[in-house]
């Protein structure tokens, strides 16, 4: 999977969790899920589960905690898929 496809897929996945006043277009690779996209930290738990299902990977606790930005997520996905 190339980086663009991963990014597009991730954006679609994060979209529903955005608060009403944040548009999907506001998502950038460097966007911080909680601080910039204003995603409820409880919902971040659900995003992690969605990422696991969507990309068929399992994230460890420390990895979940390290997943702060969209780029963090993409990097994790790349690494996890490569290690399979």
């Amino acid at each position, binding site marked *: 999977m190339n980086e663009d496809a991963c990014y597009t897929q991730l954006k679609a996945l994060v979209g*529903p969790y955005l608060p009403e006043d944040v548009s999907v277009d506001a998502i950038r690779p460097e966007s911080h899920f909680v601080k910039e996209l204003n995603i409820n930290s409880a*919902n971040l*738990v*659900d995003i992690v*589960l969605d990422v696991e299902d969507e990309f068929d990977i399992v994230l460890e606790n420390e990895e979940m905690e390290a997943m702060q930005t969209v780029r963090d997520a993409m990097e994790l996905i790349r690494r996890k898929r490569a290690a399979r």
Partner: protein
Amino acid sequence: MDRRVVVTGMGVCAPNGTGLEAFASALGSGRSGIRFEPELKALSFGCQIAGKPLFDETHLNKYFKPVQQRGLLASGLVYGVMAGVDAWEDAGLGMDAEEPDWDSGVIFGTGLLGVDKLRESIYHVDAGQVRRLGSTAVSQTMASGISAYLGGMLGCGNQVSTNSSACSTGAEAVLMAWERIRNGAALRMLAGSCSDSGPYIWGGFDAMRILPRNFNDDPASASRPMSATAAGFVPGSGAGALLLESLESALDREAPIYAEVLGGSVNCGGQRAGGSMTAPNSLAVQRCITQALEIAGVHPWEVDTINGHLTATGKDVEEIANWSKALGRKGPDFPYVNSFKGTLGHCLAAAGSIECVASLLQMKEGTLFGNVNCEDLHPDIVPWANPDRIPQKPLSFTPNILAKASFGFGDVNACIIFKRFTP
């Protein structure tokens, strides 16, 4: 000084109608919400029929955002939100305020919330997959999930809580809300209750063998309150909600008023003197009714309509006798009485609130909704209440003083006195 309390909004999500209009039309025509449930047959239930609200995805989308619908399995929460939001909007109240509304609160009861979510969670936990529970396992399964959800949607800043007293939960919620407004602690309280649907809620009752087993091919005839052939209650589900408000606040807002809540009473038979976990102590039932009237300042002869608990078991006769003794009125002198469980089934924790909504719709429509499935009235009821007091068809009659009671497991009772509103 005690404040007068009125009902300015209502909402309902019932087996035979979601929304006030559909519900009123179903009650007016005696349309049943009890249906055959293939799932219960597949699970070898004795009773394979139940009352469950029906609505499509478009309706669900009006109340829940797509992200809120992910992993949403708490059916009672869904019903409760629909009824609660409807009642709030029916009262002409908005949901967009930036600040909490300190004068508005929520008392929304339930028995067990989100049992299907709980089941899913237990499977994850037992498989060592606690991390897969997601973020809403708690909010969907805590009893107060429903009041918390509504409190947030409506921005309520007063008391937001959930009560639980089995099948008297809904009536009790209304009285708790009434008390709070009467005492001046709040101006508006959303009062209601909800109950999940499905095999995990209904199974325990099937195991007790108190549900009808011979109507699986004739669901609409199964729930027979006050009938000689009553065979047990049909399990139901759903939610009802009433927006209670101080008269002053309602008049200030020029809100439409359905009825006045004059007062009421809750008590318990202590599981003594014939009372048990599952059976009522008759003396306690009579006391509850008498006290409700005293608190409401109403003479027994002023009650013109009763909406009973009347679940369609052998206990219906005893309930009618208890009303008769408490009111000191018998035979031709007995008030009109009806039970909506003939078409709704017994919606358990949601029963009281759904039936309060139905009761007050009678005042609005000027119609006493008829009883269904008691064309063969139980002969032991007749000495207490003349058959003409138990209308089989809708009657053109506007109740003035209506007594509504609900009773529940644990020998608990609740009785509310409503009055047609006159300024």
